Every structure is written in structure tokens, then in C-alpha cells.
């Protein structure tokens, strides 16, 4: 290793005020006093001014120049490049503004990378190559120190006299504990009883002045049987104010017009509570997956399965929409359907069981 290695740590302290010392001599003395030993230390270029050194210098200068240009470019692009968004259909004329974001990223990236590579090269190629060793001094304090600090601490406790004064101890506890409660009590405001929110949807007549709720499309059009072709399905909402908005996130329902043979199957399979819930060959299921509530919206006509894209539960339409694959455990609730004298679908009642994911008091 290097010559510096054998400056043994036992050496006499050097007088750092001695004017004859070089700056590095003083640094070395500092290291020695701090318990740091130089194992290896050499300048990156022992002979200054070589070609190799010049080349590295030029490279670093280039990096910093690129950084500066990149940063100027960023500012220029930011200020002068056309940036206002113009919507263009695919394949239509290109607009300059389309390149605004990429140009910003490119110029900023260039500026930062130039700076970074420049600094790293400087650090790796021009700084002295060094290896030092420093003592760790870990493993806790001296035993005496521990004893003194321990005694001091426990003395503090003694001085308060809390051990000798059980009355104060209890009184303090009584005084402080409720204060802790008081600190979190305001959060109690967050807690409100769920009430019947989890078991009613927008199809409950209660949401419609006691009248049965009709079915509508997202745009508000009331739903009539001829709007769904055989084998087709549409998403319907309760025809009440805001019925198609997120305010009634529990209400989206899938209305399916089954083919004759499927409808027969569905009628034959229907659970007791759902006997008569279909209207003709029309059947309506809650769209909210009974797993954890994604809209189960992928309808596979051939297999009559409804697939939830979130965790791939599959529900069999012709058999009460019971789960046949995946993590869901319960069938999609069915909405009892009928058509009124105006030829519009309405819900005979709300869903018969709570829609969506399970919860503790669901039963």
C-alpha cells in the first residue's frame, strides 16, 4: 500500500501552528487525531497536465456545457414552444404542441444528465484515489457511564417522589387519561351509523315518494322492452333524480333479454324468492359484484356468463347469477321486474337481498 500507511497512530502530536507544514500535512494530522488512517492515497494524475488528464477535463467541460445548453433549451421550450393542446384524430395533421411535453422532458433530462455525468466523472477520474480506515467505536457506552446515567435517571424519578406518593400517582393517571380521550374524541364525528344505506338502493320505492321506481338509461330515457334485442343487455338505473350518478353507486343494474331456451332455464332454476321476478324473457341483475363491488360488466353470450373484470368472478345468468368461478361467494341479486301501462319497465320492489360485497351484519 502507500507510504502513508505506516504513519503509526502512536506518533507524537504534530504542532499544526508550525508554518513549515503543508496544508496536506495538517489534514493528515487531523485524520490521525480523529482516528482515521490513510491506507492508500494517490493523486489521479501524479504528473499534472498529461494528455489523458486534459482529455478528461475536456469531457467534463463538455458535460457541463451540455447541461447548460439543456437547461437553456428547457427554458426556451417552456416559454416559446407552442404548447396549447389541439385535439387531433389519429392520422390527421401533426401539431407542434404534441411535442411540447417530450421536448421538456428531453431538455430537462439532458441538463440534469450532463450535470450528473460531469460531476461523477470529475469525482471518479480527477479526485485523488483514496482508501481510509476509520474506527467505529460502537458497542455502547462504558459500564461506568451506564451506571452514572442510570443512577441519574432513577434519581430524577425519586426526586419527584412519585413512588412515595401513591395518591398523586393515581390522581395524575386520572387527570391524564381522560385528556387522551378528549384528544381523540373529535374524531368520533367521523362515525355515523350506516343505517339502511347498505341494504337499500335507488330502486327502493322509499326514494320515489313510495311509488315503484321505473328503469332508465344513463341519459334519462325510460326503458321499454323493445330497447333490448334478444340476447342483448343494457345497463339501467333507477329513474329518480341523480339515479344515474355516483350518488346511487349501488344501483347500476344489468337488464338482459334472454333467448327463449335460456329464459326457460332461468325460470326453472329460479330460487323461491325470485319466482316471478322476470318479466317475459327479461331478467335484471345488480351490476355490483358481490365480491368487492366492481361493476361486473362483461357479458359472454355463448356461455351465458357475466364476468367481473376485477378478480374474474363469473356468474351464471341462467341460474340466479350464482358464482361459478373466482372469489365471489354469492349470487348477484335480482331486481323483480314488471312493465307498467305506459310500456315502461319498473322495479316491483328493491333488490330482495343487499347488493354488493358482504359485510358482518349482512347475515
Amino acid at each position, binding site marked *: 500500500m502507500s507510504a502513508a500507511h505506516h504513519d503509526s497512530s502512536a506518533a507524537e502530536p504534530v504542532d499544526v501552528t508550525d508554518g513549515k507544514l503543508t496544508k496536506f500535512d495538517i489534514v493528515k494530522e487531523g485524520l490521525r487525531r480523529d482516528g482515521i488512517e490513510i491506507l492508500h492515497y494517490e493523486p489521479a494524475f501524479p504528473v499534472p497536465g498529461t494528455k489523458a488528464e486534459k482529455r478528461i477535463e475536456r469531457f467534463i467541460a463538455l458535460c457541463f456545457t451540455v447541461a447548460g445548453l439543456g437547461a437553456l433549451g428547457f427554458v426556451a421550450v417552456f416559454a416559446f414552444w407552442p404548447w396549447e393542446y389541439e385535439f387531433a384524430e389519429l392520422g390527421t395533421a401533426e401539431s407542434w404542441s404534441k411535442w411540447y411535453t417530450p421536448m421538456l422532458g428531453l431538455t430537462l433530462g439532458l441538463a440534469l444528465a450532463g450535470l450528473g455525468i460531469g*460531476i461523477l466523472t470529475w469525482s471518479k477520474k480527477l479526485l485523488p484515489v483514496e482508501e481510509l480506515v476509520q474506527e467505529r467505536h460502537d458497542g455502547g457506552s462504558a459500564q461506568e457511564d451506564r451506571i452514572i446515567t442510570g443512577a441519574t435517571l432513577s434519581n430524577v424519578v425519586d426526586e419527584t417522589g412519585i413512588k412515595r406518593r401513591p395518591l398523586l400517582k393515581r390522581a395524575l393517571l386520572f387527570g391524564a387519561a381522560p385528556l387522551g380521550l378528549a384528544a381523540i374524541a373529535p374524531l368520533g364525528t367521523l362515525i355515523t351509523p350506516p343505517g339502511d344505506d347498505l341494504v337499500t338502493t335507488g330502486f327502493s320505492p322509499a326514494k320515489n315518494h313510495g311509488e315503484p321506481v321505473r328503469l332508465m338509461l344513463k341519459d334519462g330515457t325510460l326503458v321499454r322492452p323493445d330497447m333490448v334485442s334478444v340476447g342483448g343487455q343494457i345497463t339501467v338505473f333507477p329513474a329518480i333524480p341523480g339515479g344515474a350518478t355516483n350518488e346511487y353507486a349501488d344501483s347500476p343494474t344489468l337488464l338482459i333479454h334472454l333467448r327463449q331456451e335460456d329464459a326457460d332455464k332461468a325460470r326453472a332454476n329460479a330460487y323461491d324468492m325470485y319466482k316471478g321476478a322476470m318479466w317475459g324473457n327479461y331478467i335484471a341483475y345488480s351490476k355490483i359484484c358481490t365480491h368487492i363491488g366492481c361493476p361486473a360488466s362483461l357479458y359472454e353470450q355463448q356461455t351465458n356468463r357475466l364476468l367481473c373484470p376485477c378478480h374474474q368472478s363469473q356468474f351464471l345468468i341462467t341460474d340466479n347469477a350464482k358464482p361459478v368461478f373466482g372469489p365471489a361467494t354469492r349470487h348477484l341479486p335480482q331486481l323483480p321486474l314488471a312493465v307498467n301501462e305506459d310500456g315502461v319497465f319498473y322495479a316491483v320492489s328493491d333488490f330482495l337481498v343487499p347488493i354488493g360485497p358482504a359485510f358482518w351484519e349482512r347475515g
Partner: protein
Amino acid sequence: MKRRKFDAKQMPAKIGNELDDRFKLASPVRGLLTKVFPDHWSFLLGEIALFSFIVLLLTGTFLALFFEPSMVHVVYDGSYTPLRGIGMSKAYESTLHISFDVRGGLVIRQMHHWAALLFVASILVHMGRVFFSGAFRKPREANWVIGFILFILAFFEGLMGYSIPDDGLSGTGLRIVHGITESIPLIGSWAAHALFGGEYPGEVIVTRFYILHVLLIPGIMLALIAVHVGLVFAQKHSQWPGPGRTEHNVVGYRMFPNYVSKQGGFFMLVFAVIALMGGLFQINPIWLFGPYEASVVSSGSQPDFYVMFLDGLVRLFPSWELSGFGFTLPAVFWPAVVGMGVAFTVPLLYPFIERRFTKDKAHHNLLERPRDNPTRTAVGAMVTSIWLITTITGANDIVADKFNISLNAMTWGGRIGIVVIPVITFFITRRICLGLQQHDREVLAHGIETGIMRRDANGRFYEVHQPLTSEVDEHGHPKVLEYNGWTVPKKMNRVGALLPAVKGFFKPVELPSETPRREVEGDDRSREEIEAGRR
């Protein structure tokens, strides 16, 4: 009286003296300047996390100047024509506004998202390096715990960031958060109601998540990161075993100028990568997803990668719902609440769990090569395999679609895989570690295989081995070197026969000296150094 001439050269010394008069700085500053740091590429992983966190703070602050965390209903009227006239929440509208109508808004938004992904990814890899090198052992257990809490916070921070733009994807995520909360026994529906301020989705969740996302969680993270890095500083970084390195010293270079310049340069590089990605690669194009509508979901809607393990776990878990006495224990409770609970607590306590088994109470400042602790490495590999399976399952519909596999087959494959593969991984990893150990010992005993074939006097072929030491035993054979935790050179170019194959970033580990180097005479450190790494 003549005014004294201003002497610019004397200025720094003068300022220094004035400051020292007041703050007594000389000695602590010197300690800082010359603090010795060990070097290894794997120590940079934590720095990447640190740097991306800084970028997150910077870009996030910019976004906060324009984002409006409100679920108030508005009708869009901005530059993005396809959505004009559509009703949406103010939060979603302001995100569109940042993307299309704020100069430079999109690049900052995308940088923020890329930085978040890089942040979590680097935390995970950093955690892996800390785990597999045994850096969490005494005295660094506290930093492991703090680090893991940071990971948990980063997970939720990301999840909330993903939720607040209130686009189609984030709404689906929120729906799942709601469903999972609801599944908790006894208090589920009340907890969900409290969190969402009423029936799902309510009108406050974005506002609530926003304040957590921009103030509470980053604040806690900032404080914890300060403690984390402060502890690394105070306890001094661990180091890989190697020539001259013992449990009681640190071998490396000084903080100034070496360490700090490398860190500074590296920060700029990380920042540059984030800027380039933010500019060139689209991420989370919320305008394509539309505003959140409870009735709409697209297939292939994936959360960010670090949440996918949870999604996968939920997909794999069978439909086992318990009910009775009028109560229901939903199936999701197990993978989502219990699964997440286990994933977030067992690793947190790992240093203490390991210590229960090893009864190891010693201080460890020298890291352990993964092969030297086969059981820990195998446990780590096993956990990694579980994470990989669940993460891939989190995207199994996409995998199924891309490779034309049936989705049901994917799910069943995952269900069986998650039981079988971790066990296999455990045993294979252990064997590989033991094999590598064995090979190290062979090379130390017989030398490096040179690939040169010779023929002996009897006509038999043998391969020439390059011994690692010139010392010989009493029979004249090269001495059998003792393994001491250092990297054992396996190729001739590692002992200087050829130039190192890859120079630069993955710097080849230092050339081994022939025998453990003698330390200062009369010091017993040389003995400890040979023992270092021996079990």
C-alpha cells in the same frame, strides 16, 4: 484614518472564525468532512429511494398549486375536446386541466407518477439488499423497522395518490378499498361509512385522501427518512468483508469530496432519468379512462405494480365465506385484511424473529454474502417467489389474453403455484447457496481453474489450477486458505491475469491480496479479520 482594504482572500477564514466564535464548529465540521464511507454499488439503492422522494416532493408541490381535491360536480369545458360537456368531479377536471391547460403541467404530472414508481421499486430492491446481506442485524434492527414502516407508508401514499384524480381507474380502486374495509368483522360497515363519510362513494373521500397524501403521510415519511438516514450516519454504514475490513472499522473514502460528489452526481442522474421518462413515456393517461362512474369498468384495469400483489392474493383466494348466527365473515377478509396484515407485520419483525432462532447477540458491521447464510437467503427467495406469483396473478387477465391461456387455468395455476413454488424455491435456493460455498472452499484449497489442460507423465489430462497463495505447507503444496467471507476470485482475470471484463459501475470487487494483510504491528485486529465471516 485609512480604511482597511477589503481582502477577499481572507474572507472565508474570517467568516469561519466568526462562525466558530459563536457555534464552536471546527471540530464537528472536520468530523463531517472526513467521515469515512464504505463503497459498494448495492449501497446506492437506498439513495435512489431518497432521491426519488425528493423529486416527488418537488413535483408534488407544483401539482398542488393546480389540483383541486373536490368531488363537486362540474361540466368539463377545457381543451380536451372528447370530454367537453361531460359531467365529472372537480378533482378529475383539475387533473385534466393540469394535463392540457397548464403549461408544462403534463410533464410534471408524469414525472410525479414515474418518480412514485421508481420510489417504491427502489425501496423494494433496497429492502432486498438489506435483507440478503444481513444488514438488519444488531445494531441496525431499528433502522430495519423504520425502513419497513417507510415502505408501508409509501404503499399507502401511492395508493392515495392514485385515487385522488377521481378518474375511472382510481374510482375502481376506491371501490375495492371500500369493499375491503367493509369486510372487517364487527366494525366493517361502520368503518367504511366513517372513512367515506357516508354511503359509497360519498363526497369527501378525495378530499380526505388528499390531505393524507400531501400533508400527513409525507410529513411522517420526511421525519422517518431523516431518522433513517441519520441512524445510518450515526451507526456508520456496514461494509462487505474484504482486505483490512473488520467489525470495528470502516474502510472507504471520505465524505468530502469523494462521497458527496458521487452522491450529488448520482442524484442528478436519477433526476435526469425521471425527467426523461416523464417527458417521453406516457403514464396514467386519465383522459382516456374518463371520469369515475360506478357502472363502468374496463377490463385490464390494473393498479400500480406495487399494489398488484394484494390484487393477486384476492384473486387467488377461494370463495370461502363463513356465515352463521346472522353474521357473515366475507371471503375477502382473509386475503385482503389478514393477508395484508401479515405482509406488513411479519417482515417488520424479521430481525427479531431471526434472532430467536440464531440466538445471535453479537454486533455485526460486516455484511454477510447471501450464500453464507443459506437459510435466510432461502427464506428471502421464498418470500420473493410468493410476491412474484401474487403480482403476476394481479395481472393474470392480461397474461391470459396475451398468451392465449384460459383465465381459469391461470387462476388455478396460481392457486397451486402459491402453495408449491415457495417450498421448491426454498429448497433449491438453499442447495444453490451450499453449492456456492463448496465451490468457494475448493478454489481456496486448489486454486482457480485456468482452463489450461496439461498432460502428466502417465498420459492423463489434468487442468492447471492457479493457486491463490504462494505460501506452501510442509509437503510443498500450496496452502489451503481459510474462507473469511470475502469474494473468492473464480476467474483468472479477477486476479489480474487479464483486465477486468466490466469496468466502471459494477466495479469488480477488490483484488484479493494473497494473505490477509497484516495490520499495524501489535494490534490484534488481524486476527479478528480472519475470523470475520466464519460461522
